[in-house]
């Protein structure tokens, strides 16, 4: 079954890179929703059927951590699998995020790291190996 994904990042280039990486991974993608900050992301998650959220942390208007806190407080969204892709280097902050149940990926990232994280979070198998190497 195709997976509907919501990408939340204030950089349109980073959103495009993440989408490209997910497509490269061989995942059967359904709808891809995009948002430029946590508030827009929260709205998009509430208005659409989303199976997976991929979010940044440092964003204007509402940061990714606040968006995740609000998702966790919303019974409709609290169980939504979430991956954070960020430059965040503080172990303190990363551990705090992981305690909230999200998977953390550091930028720049290798495509297979995202593929593996999606596989672990969603349990979807049959995701092909990336035929491109390198990092983003």
């Amino acid at each position: 079954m195709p997976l509907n994904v919501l990408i939340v990042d204030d950089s349109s280039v980073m959103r495009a890179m993440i989408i490209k990486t997910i497509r490269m991974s061989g995942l059967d993608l359904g709808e891809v929703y995009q948002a430029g900050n946590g508030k827009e992301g929260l709205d998009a998650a509430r208005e659409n059927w989303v199976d997976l959220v991929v979010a940044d942390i440092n964003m204007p208007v509402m940061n990714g951590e606040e968006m995740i806190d609000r998702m966790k407080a919303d019974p409709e969204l609290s169980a939504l699998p979430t991956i954070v892709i960020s430059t965040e280097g503080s172990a303190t902050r990363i551990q705090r995020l992981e305690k909230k149940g999200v998977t953390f990926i550091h930028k720049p990232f290798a495509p297979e790291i995202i593929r593996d994280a999606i596989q672990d979070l969603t349990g979807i198998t049959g995701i092909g190996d990336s035929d491109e190497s390198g990092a983003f």
Partner: protein
Amino acid sequence: MNQEHSDLLMEIAAQTLEQLAFIFSFPDDTNPDAIWEEAATGCHVEFSGPSQGELLLLISNAAMPELTSNMLGMDEDEVPPEDQQHDALREALNVICGNLLPRIGGTEAVYDIQPPEILDAGAARSLLDQIKTDQRDYASALLSLDDGGCQLYMRLDT
């Protein structure tokens, strides 16, 4: 100039350009003002935490399309629009800053990084002069790219 921080800046910037955009760079200490001899774009970010400061990146305009198209996996003959080039540069500086600060302050330190801003060459040069004047302990790195160069400066208040 702080040599330790300058070496770190050089290492992180080169790694980021390679991993994020497949751009290979080489240290260049021959002419620190070389970047001003050609058209360049600036990008600036401020951070706060255990220490606060700012990071300024200057890159030759000639290198901007490759930076952007490589990040996006575009065809070689496609020229990304200017706003996309600026977005790519902001993201590159964001990644450099995010990877640099834990190396300076340790992984337990919590920093807040502001959204990077694009500066035209004149504004970037003014800011650079200010950093050099106000802060003798600044760090700098100059990288040679296939198309021009890339220069970084960091001010760190301890």
